[in-house]
């Protein structure tokens, strides 16, 4: 009997639980949504009790939070940050701007749909989403991780050409190094 | 005995008369004969030294008048040593300057060699003579040839320097004559040995007065502190090798004279302290002044004065070790300073003002001259393994043996200044960039030989000081033994 499968499975379950309870977020405060993150982290809502805590650099982070609209200029940085994060990594689109451009839907230099460029695991809607909604989003992400569904990073790797195509379409001065994994 | 000390005086004086005559026939003889004379004198001094070391002091009586009445020459280990040194240097200066400034072929250059010869003769005479009036005569010979040599270039500055020298020399001569008069009026004799024997009879006040006059007079030639104002000008304005001649020959003779006075003629204990005080002041003032000079020859001149101050200090210590050290210093200084003047002259050859900055970068263009200058500098600073170290060590040991701790400290502190100004020049020679316009002059072959000879002596003595320490030791013993001197001179039977 091959125990390897079970062993792998067990390992995966344990690691997924650990991952779900230890979400280090890199809050990329692109827009007004950044103001909601401190509220989520501090006394009143205290996301840390869920194992959510801020990470200082992309190398340490698990979750990339895009908090608001993304201009083309910022998108380049966000992609860069995302690529510097280590697997497994998750993206939370935060606020309606990240979902569909929100009030900037017809702006000449913001993107309208985040998941054309990055694989988003969880969207949190609202303008702005209240901290409760943010916590809800985290809970959703945890659920996904535990269920083994939060596979954004794999998706990105597998469909790199698609994402790169979209990214290059909008970012004119493309000077990225190769993707690191 | 191969020769007689009288030849030291007779031959050059004779030659001085003959040279102008031969010069009419064969122009180059004016250059060559003085050299031959000097070489002869050197050879004579060596042979006589050999004799003296075996048979003791030679006292030569001239014209059969025995001392104390007649004129006599004393060739003792002490005077013989100085004679040898002076004649050697005289020859070296001749060798060096044989073709020095060959383009200066106008009339005075004829006289240059005669005057040089007379300068050496006079100095040797001062050392050898046994009576004070002859000493006066020889000092005059030295002075007059010195004036002539100083104004050799017939420029305004050299004339001024010569005049200053003349001025001071005149004062010196006056006082010297007065001093001799006092002695003669009191003791009725001019013979040094006789004076020394009779000195206790003399009135103390007159004794002091005469000594003071003597010191004043001889101090001018010996370049002691307040009387040496002429020296830097003369060293600067006279041709380079003459600087060496002054530093190596004339000053040595003058120091000899003052030492003879204090050690043999007079019986004052306090005179030794006077020597130390004068020597120390001279040393300090000269070395500190040298630090602030911007002309090479002036710097060397002050350095030379300073070294003489050190020699006086060493004599002033008054012990046999002190005399030994002083003689060693004199020897080293004569050799090294000549080397420095010789090589330094070429380093600033074509420059009128002879600033120190003109030596910049000469290390590349005049390698041998520069190395020799460097060796000379290191030696005079007293760095081992060059010869200067041993003499400095001797001075310090002598001072230490006499418990003069402060003196040692002062000498050493001032020596640091000496190191500073010499190294500044050496650094310039090797590590500064040459000014575009400065023209270099390669030393002629004879000059090179002279310099290398001196350089080799510096190195050899540095590695093996015993070569001359025997001579020095005998000379020192000779000077210290006053009674023996009197006995030898006065009981001469010949």
């Amino acid at each position, binding site marked *: 009997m091959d125990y390897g499968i079970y062993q792998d499975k067990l390992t995966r379950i344990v690691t997924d639980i650990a991952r779900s309870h230890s979400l280090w977020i890199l809050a990329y405060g692109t827009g007004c949504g950044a103001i909601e993150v401190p509220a989520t982290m501090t006394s009143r809502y205290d996301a840390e*009790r869920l194992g959510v805590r801020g990470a200082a650099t992309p190398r340490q982070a*698990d979750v990339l939070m895009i908090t608001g609209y993304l201009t083309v200029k910022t998108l380049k940085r966000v992609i860069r940050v995302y690529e510097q994060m280590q697997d497994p990594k998750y993206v939370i689109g935060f606020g309606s701007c990240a979902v569909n451009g929100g009030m900037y839907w017809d702006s000449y230099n913001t993107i309208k749909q985040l998941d054309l460029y990055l694989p988003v695991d969880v969207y949190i809607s609202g303008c702005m989403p209240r901290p409760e909604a943010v916590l809800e989003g985290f809970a959703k992400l945890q659920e996904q991780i535990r269920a083994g569904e939060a596979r954004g990073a794999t998706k990105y790797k597998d469909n790199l050409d698609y994402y790169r195509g979209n990214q290059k379409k909008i970012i004119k001065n493309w000077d990225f190094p190769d993707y690191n*994994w | 005995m191969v020769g007689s000390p009288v030849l030291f005086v007779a031959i050059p004086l004779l030659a001085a008369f003959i040279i102008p005559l031969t010069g009419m026939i064969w122009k180059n003889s004016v250059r060559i004969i003085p050299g031959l004379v000097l070489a002869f004198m050197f050879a004579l001094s060596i042979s006589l030294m050999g004799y003296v070391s075996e048979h003791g002091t030679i006292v030569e009586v001239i014209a059969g008048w025995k001392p104390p009445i007649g004129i006599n020459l004393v060739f003792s280990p002490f005077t013989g040593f100085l004679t040898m040194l002076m004649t050697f240097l005289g020859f070296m200066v001749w060798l060096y300057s044989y073709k020095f400034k060959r383009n200066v072929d106008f009339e005075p250059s004829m006289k240059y060699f005669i005057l040089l010869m007379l300068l050496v003769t006079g100095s040797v005479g001062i050392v050898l003579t046994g009576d004070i009036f002859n000493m006066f005569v020889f000092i005059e010979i030295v002075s007059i040839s010195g004036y002539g040599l100083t104004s050799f270039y017939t420029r305004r500055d050299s004339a001024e320097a010569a005049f200053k020298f003349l001025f001071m020399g005149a004062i010196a001569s006056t006082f010297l004559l007065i001093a001799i008069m006092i002695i003669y009026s009191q003791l009725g004799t001019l013979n040094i040995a006789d004076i020394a024997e009779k000195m206790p009879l003399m009135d103390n006040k007159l004794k002091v007065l005469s000594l003071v006059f003597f010191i004043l007079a001889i101090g001018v030639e010996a370049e002691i502190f307040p009387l040496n104002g002429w020296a830097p000008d003369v060293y600067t304005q006279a041709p380079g090798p003459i600087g060496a001649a002054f530093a190596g020959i004339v000053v040595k003779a003058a120091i000899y004279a003052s030492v003879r006075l204090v050690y043999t003629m007079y019986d004052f204990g306090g005179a030794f302290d006077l020597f130390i005080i004068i020597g120390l002041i001279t040393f300090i003032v000269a070395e500190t002044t040298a630090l602030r000079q911007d002309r090479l020859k002036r710097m060397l001149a002050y350095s030379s004065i300073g070294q003489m101050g050190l020699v006086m200090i060493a004599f002033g210590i008054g012990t046999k070790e002190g005399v030994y050290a002083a003689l060693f210093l004199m020897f080293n200084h004569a050799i090294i300073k000549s080397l420095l003047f010789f090589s330094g002259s070429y380093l600033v050859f074509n420059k009128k003002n002879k600033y120190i900055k003109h030596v910049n970068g000469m290390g590349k263009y005049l390698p041998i001259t520069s190395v020799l200058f460097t060796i000379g500098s290191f030696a005079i600073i007293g760095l081992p393994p060059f010869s200067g170290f041993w003499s400095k060590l001797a001075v310090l040991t002598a001072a230490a043996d006499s418990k003069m701790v402060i003196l040692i400290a002062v000498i050493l502190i001032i020596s640091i200044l000496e190191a500073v100004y010499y190294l500044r020049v050496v650094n310039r020679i090797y590590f500064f960039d040459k000014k575009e316009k400065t023209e270099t002059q390669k030393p002629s072959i004879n000059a090179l030989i002279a310099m290398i000879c001196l350089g080799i002596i510096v190195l050899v003595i540095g590695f093996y000081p015993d070569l001359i320490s025997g001579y020095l030791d005998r000379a020192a013993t000779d000077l210290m033994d006053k009674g023996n001197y009197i006995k030898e001179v006065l009981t001469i039977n010949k």
Partner: protein
Amino acid sequence: MEGILMSILGAIATFLLAFVVGMTYGGIRRKVIARVQNRYGPPIYQNFIDAFKLFSKTTAVHHGAMHLLGPAFLMVSAVVALMIIPVLRDNIWFTNLNFKGDLIFLIYIMTFGPLGMALGAGQTGNPNSAIGVTRGLSQMVGFEIPWVMALVALMIKYNTTSVVDLMNVQNEVGQWLIFQNPFAFVAAILASLGMFRYAPFNIVGAPTELASGPASENGGKFLFTMMSAGSVFAFVKLTLLVDVFFGGASNLIELVIKTFLLYMIPVMYGVVNPRYRTEQAVTYFWGWPLLFGFLAIIYSVYF
């Protein structure tokens, strides 16, 4: 053979103990900070989860040999320091290398790791890392002085430089060195504030300013190693303080209580203080702690 096996097992046991205790204390600290900030806070075992997560994360990139070795240096230093420290009194399991080293060795070996880590941080090329390192080293110069003064005061009082010997002179509560030489204890505990690098002395890795400083290029296993080494280090420092000032501990419970109480000092000091700038931190240590160090030495020499 049995001896070797025993000592290897002992070493592993010590390491595990240190790891677990250190991690738990870290969790407690987070909890305490949260409670002080009127938050609920993460569970006490949160640090274990974090560590496990970090360990399970991919580490895809490195910046060169020193970057790889940096965390290793840190770990080595922590483990060696742990081996030297007497964890429990007269306990064969935790003896390890106790008698082979002494206080001075300990002081030095404890700086070995941070320096190695600093090299690793340097090679990443991240300017934040180097800035953090310079701050950390500067701060170290600050706190080492009172720390050493406190230890020297004890050494000269009890004529020994060995931790074990210092433990052996404190057989009763009254003989504890905290009572024997309170100045030394004050100096040491003030110095330990800097050693723990908690607020207000956390300028080294200030997350918002320096992006966590030396650790900024380290994720995944690197960070895991650093984190566990840090936990072990925390345990080492606490145990050392307990050994030196509180007579050590004869069983694990005593050890845990004592170390926990001690641990609360820097934690509590930290939660109510903002962050010092580097020069403020350095001059802080050269102020009162230094004075207490002097007093400790004077007290040891003359009383």
